[in-house]
């Protein structure tokens, strides 16, 4: 399978990438790790006229502690997330979820920014960043803005990102008592249902919870009913009760040969319970 022809420019800076995006107009697309875009181009499901390569932009790469937050640059690869000592220590959920993405080769190329911007319904990181209540920073011709992760994902492959904008980084307050549980689709390894949970625990009782689901629906989103059921619950004992029916609240659920709607809804509850149990065990 072979992509259609396009022009290629490598951006040396975010500013240059923005300028190239402006010049290229609607036919221009950013290329980061290429592990969502190139497969689509090979199947001729995407036919951009101009690719602007930001994969090598060091200014967008890396995991840093900034004050009491952690900032992750858009071109940080999944492998770098998985290997980050800082994340392992302070926000293990992100390192662990990254380590479950695809396979070693995919993790060596794919980037967090690409994963969020592409917003595959089965992508893992969107749920994790919603659970971490991350802020997503975006730069465009008119300057920069930040969007809470929970508002960023809009629909299937659709996010709050305009033509000409670049996702530059994400930042969040690290939470240790957070975990991600995923049921992989057996062929592609994307999430059939994945749930990320971040808890605030006090003496075995949940004080606050953020829960997000991916895989089952058109896009990653919060599960408010589970969040409120968790608050005040003794964990892990109360996990099952709080997560029961977790998937039923979704208005739209995907269905294909790997899982019917009914199955996926049920799996959301199972993954939610598992994630809550793991998160509580940390907390």
């Amino acid at each position, binding site marked *: 399978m072979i992509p259609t*022809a396009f022009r290629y420019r490598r951006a040396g800076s975010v500013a240059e990438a923005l300028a190239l995006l402006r010049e290229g107009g609607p036919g221009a697309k950013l290329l980061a790790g290429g592990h969502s875009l*190139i*497969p689509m181009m090979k*199947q001729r499901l995407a036919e951009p006229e101009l690719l602007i390569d930001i994969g090598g932009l060091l200014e967008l790469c890396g995991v840093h502690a900034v004050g009491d937050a952690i900032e992750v640059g858009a071109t940080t690869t999944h492998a770098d997330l998985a290997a980050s000592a800082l994340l392992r220590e302070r926000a293990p959920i992100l390192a662990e979820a990254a380590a479950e993405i695809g396979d070693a080769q995919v993790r*060596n*190329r794919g980037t967090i920014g690409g994963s969020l911007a592409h917003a595959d319904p089965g992508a893992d990181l969107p749920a994790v960043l919603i659970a971490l209540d991350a802020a997503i920073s975006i730069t465009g011709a008119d300057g920069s803005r930040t969007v809470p992760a929970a508002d960023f994902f809009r629909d299937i492959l659709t996010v709050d990102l305009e033509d000409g904008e670049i996702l530059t980084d994400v930042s969040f307050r690290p939470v240790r008592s957070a975990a991600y549980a995923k049921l992989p689709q057996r062929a592609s390894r994307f999430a059939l249902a994945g749930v990320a949970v971040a808890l605030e625990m006090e003496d075995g009782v949940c004080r606050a919870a953020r829960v997000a689901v991916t895989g089952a629906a058109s896009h990653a989103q919060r599960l408010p009913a589970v969040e409120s059921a968790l608050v005040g619950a003794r964990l892990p004992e109360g996990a099952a009760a709080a997560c029961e029916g977790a998937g039923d609240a979704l208005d739209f659920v995907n269905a294909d040969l790997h899982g019917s709607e009914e199955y996926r809804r049920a799996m959301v509850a199972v993954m939610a319970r598992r994630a809550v149990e793991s998160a509580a065990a940390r907390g």
Partner: protein
Amino acid sequence: MSETVPITVRVNGRERTAAVAPRLLLVHFLRESLNLTGTHVGCDTSQCGACTVLLDGRSVKSCTVFAVQADGEEVQTIEGLAAGDDLHPLQDGFWEEHGLQCGYCTPGMIMSALNLLRENPSPDDARIREGISGNICRCTGYQHIVNAIRNAAERMAPA
């Protein structure tokens, strides 16, 4: 559209310069332009790993990288693994343990194993199986491949 882009890639230690169409995949650059046909293509959706090479020391699927993205970088392919007649320990391991049958997946498997052993020089069997899960082999049932990688890890361990 026939725009070409000049690129320079260090392949197996040798600097290679070419003008390539942006859409040329790295795997085709290696196979067609450089005649390094040990890197194979087994799928078109980035799943099988037959095309695995090292790009700047990390395993990547060269069917999912444009040659232009490798400009200025270092690529290692299966052909660059042996030093003259001296096989790399992974090659010896695959030979010794019968880690291949038709051999089609083998170069990619070996390059993935190289990435794995770089990260984890003495993996247990479960780690080995996870480490090669981006590579599909239809012939071996993987068991001899796991043995081969374990065998190589032992050879590569500092005495």
